[in-house]
């Protein structure tokens, strides 16, 4: 945590409400995101208990698994989820624009421009918390290797038709969320935490209710009190007033309300199977009771999620967010193409080359995100300036100079008066954004006096002997130089999977086609 963020947290303590740590919105927020609030059964892996899902905050679809240990009911839940999510994902698949991309021609080996499709917009998935993101990954993993009866008639417990497909999409979204700055799958706690500092610790911010209580405390309540209420206030029955944002449920809810309701459901089901008169009605009653119980835990989180979305929409958008969103659109389009081409689901473990590629892509994305956030937001830049990675100030003097080459190039010397203390050593490279949005490069050329730094401009002035008009600052101009690149690039290209070096296990086995489905036993759940 930087000192500026620490300070913001302390201001929040003083003011009793959250303080901004960003002046613009640093992530893409769709106009029509799909919100997904899942709940899971305690102690079971991938046994969902229920969910609210939908694009309309007023009419979410409630999905419930009345007995999470029943495989058929779980499959019905997943089928319903696929029915809700896949049409949403599909609705973005066909609205495309054409982009030009360089591809290697297989015959000549030369790079030639080709026209490729890029989806004009991409679907966005919002979950309440970081645990929700992890649950999306887990759901994806649990579904994508399932076999349907169509794929394999002999499969012991066939999954409903579109469930494996949803598994692949959720896996893709879960994987993409690990790329810094990506916005296909976002959690509200992460989004809000990026833009506001509360008067509590990072750990406590993981609770969506408590985070929102600091950001929007109710009238007359200081944030700390409202957050405490959101965290731990219970009704006369011992139930939390603000249920946890999931996917884990509150143990008190499980033990006091859910377990008896599931027991009643089981009893009614046994009656129906035993042919007891009136069993059907009791089963319906028990199921409705469960639906209401689970909805009571989901609805507050659903509302909190949209409340957070409203707050975020109030922020002006960061200038470079669209550039990052375009990469998300590429990612969505790429997966759409893989699904359409009938490729198998993502493997359980990446091969060496894919893993290295992902890592390097994430490192590049991290560097780009850090640079872009700083350029978009003076408050983030303030943090970089404090850290000595940038400096801002007023131009006091400009002295024209030229390089000593056969064709001399303009190399003006600009003196900037600043109170910042950048870590400048030698002829370190410097970057700034010019009025037209291009990046100008320069290098450090010494300090005239303490706080008067001389920068030699090295680029962005055109090709001629005299700099293009407007490309050299004038005394009185305010400017901000950074020591970091504005558009950092990744490292060298990695080899194809077929030429994986032996140090990394050699080329992947050609035989290992398609992953085996997970082992299933008569009752997977204990």
């Amino acid at each position: 945590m930087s000192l500026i963020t620490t300070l913001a947290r302390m201001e929040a303590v003083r003011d009793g409400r959250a303080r901004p740590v960003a002046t613009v919105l640093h992530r893409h927020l769709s106009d029509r995101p799909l919100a997904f609030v899942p709940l899971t059964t305690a102690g079971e892996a991938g046994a969902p208990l229920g969910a609210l899902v939908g694009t309309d905050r007023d009419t979410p679809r409630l999905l419930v698994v009345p007995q999470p240990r029943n495989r058929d009911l779980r499959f019905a839940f997943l089928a319903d989820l696929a029915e809700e999510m896949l049409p949403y994902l599909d609705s973005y698949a066909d609205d495309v624009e054409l982009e030009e991309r360089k591809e290697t021609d297989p015959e000549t080996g030369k790079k030639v421009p080709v026209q490729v499709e890029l989806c004009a917009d991409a679907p966005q998935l919002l979950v309440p918390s970081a645990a929700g993101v992890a649950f999306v990954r887990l759901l994806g993993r649990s579904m994508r290797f399932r076999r349907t009866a169509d794929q394999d008639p002999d499969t012991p417990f066939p999954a409903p038709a579109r469930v494996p497909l949803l598994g692949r999409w959720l896996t893709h979204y879960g994987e993409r969320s690990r790329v810094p700055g990506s916005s296909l799958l976002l959690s509200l706690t992460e989004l809000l935490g990026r833009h506001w500092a509360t008067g509590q610790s990072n750990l406590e911010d993981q609770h969506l209710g408590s985070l929102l209580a600091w950001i929007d405390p109710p009238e007359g309540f200081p944030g700390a009190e409202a957050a405490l209420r959101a965290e731990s206030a219970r009704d006369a029955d011992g139930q939390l007033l603000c249920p946890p944002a999931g996917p884990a449920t509150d143990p008190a809810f499980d033990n006091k309300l859910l377990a008896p309701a599931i027991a009643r459901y089981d009893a009614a089901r046994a009656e129906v199977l035993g042919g007891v008169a009136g069993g059907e009605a009791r089963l319906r009653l028990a199921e409705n009771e469960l639906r209401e119980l689970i909805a009571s835990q989901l609805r507050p989180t659903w509302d909190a999620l949209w409340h957070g979305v409203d707050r975020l929409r109030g922020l002006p958008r960061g200038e470079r967010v669209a550039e990052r969103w375009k990469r998300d659109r590429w990612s969505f389009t790429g997966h759409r193409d893989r699904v359409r081409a009938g490729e198998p689901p993502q493997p359980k473990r990446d091969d060496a080359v894919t893993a290295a590629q992902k890592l390097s892509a994430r490192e590049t994305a991290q560097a780009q995100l850090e640079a872009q956030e700083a350029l978009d937001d003076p408050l983030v830049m303030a943090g970089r300036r404090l850290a000595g990675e940038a400096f801002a100030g007023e131009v006091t003097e400009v002295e024209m100079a030229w390089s000593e080459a056969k064709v001399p190039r303009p190399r003006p010397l600009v003196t900037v008066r600043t109170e910042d203390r950048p870590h400048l050593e030698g002829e370190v490279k410097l970057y700034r954004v010019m009025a037209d949005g291009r990046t100008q490069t320069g290098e450090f050329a010494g300090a005239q006096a303490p706080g008067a730094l001389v920068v030699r401009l090295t680029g962005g002035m055109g090709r001629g002997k005299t700099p293009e008009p407007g490309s050299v600052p004038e005394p009185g101009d305010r400017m901000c130089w950074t020591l970091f690149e504005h558009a950092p690039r990744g490292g060298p290209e990695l080899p194809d999977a077929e030429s994986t070096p032996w140090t990394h296990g050699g080329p992947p086995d050609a035989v290992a086609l398609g992953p085996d489905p997970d082992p299933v036993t008569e009752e997977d759940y204990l």
Partner: protein
Amino acid sequence: MDARALAALAANPGCRRRALLDGAGVDKGALARALGASANFGQSQFAHQRGNSFEARVKADRGETLTRLLHERLRDGSPAPEPGGVDTPDLTAVGPQGRTARTALALREATAAGRWALLDHPMVSLDVAGSPAFLEPDAVVVHPDGSWSVIEIKSFPMVDGSADPAKVGAAARQAAVYALALERVAARVGELKPDSVGEARAVRVRHQVLLVCPKDFSNLPTAELVDVRKQLSVTRRQLARLTRIEDIAAALPEGTTFDLRLADDGRTVTRPAEELTAAVDAVDAAYAPECLAACELAVHCRARSRATGAVESLGRGVRGELGGLTTVESVLAAALERTGGEPTGDPAVDALRRAAALRAEALAAPGAVACR
């Protein structure tokens, strides 16, 4: 005190309050409720059932699955346990001391036998701040070569060979406490063991524990070895650092008690909350937000910590860059004090002032092109 509590205590060795209350066996949950600051602790019965039934399933065949998994993961070329070749000594005894003694005896016999043996829920003891704590690992396996392995059975899933790192970390810390306690037993067994074969075989506790979890989404067990050397040395060091409980107790005002004075129904607390608060406040706590996940009393300590404005309530790392400033109020005062921008000689204060000035500048002109 169980291993989980011990691991948590070892994670925050500076907390005298926790050391004293745990050492005295005070029910911190009940105390927190009486103070009106109960934390959301508790286990769902679903998780509890699954945990128990998974453990029962794994142990159903008298240790053969567990020793087979252990042997497979070790890959050390030793002979695999034969079917029916795993001893499972009876460990029933009266009281924790009795069970501990019985466990030590069984360990000595199994070690001497030179066969695979599985001790199901043994009991070992560890000296914590001057008083004994009794611990019950899920299982301990004795190898034919005389070494011992701690087995930790957990019901969170291991999907594609990896599990939630936070949960694995907690399990490793817990297992390290068991390994530490076993090392004490091993030292005694080593001393007492008359060398019958005439060949010295040092009794040792392996520093890799076997973590057994459900595989993927099934109920079939899978396992991985987890190296706990680091956790072991941390726990050993932290436990050594714990102030002796007698010393903490000696510093208390005369007559301090944490008795809730329960009424005859055994639930209603009749002791006034102010009295209890005073008693609890008589011992120092070292609150950090991490406590919220590990200590029942954390909500109370957090409230006290915030009331005094301690900067640690915002995170353990916050203190580091603030020098001698320990309260939120003093930090804000130092940061916002108007001076001529002269350096104060205190680097922490200078950095704070610069941070405050930069922050104010950026907030005053949102969207302004301060960076062009």
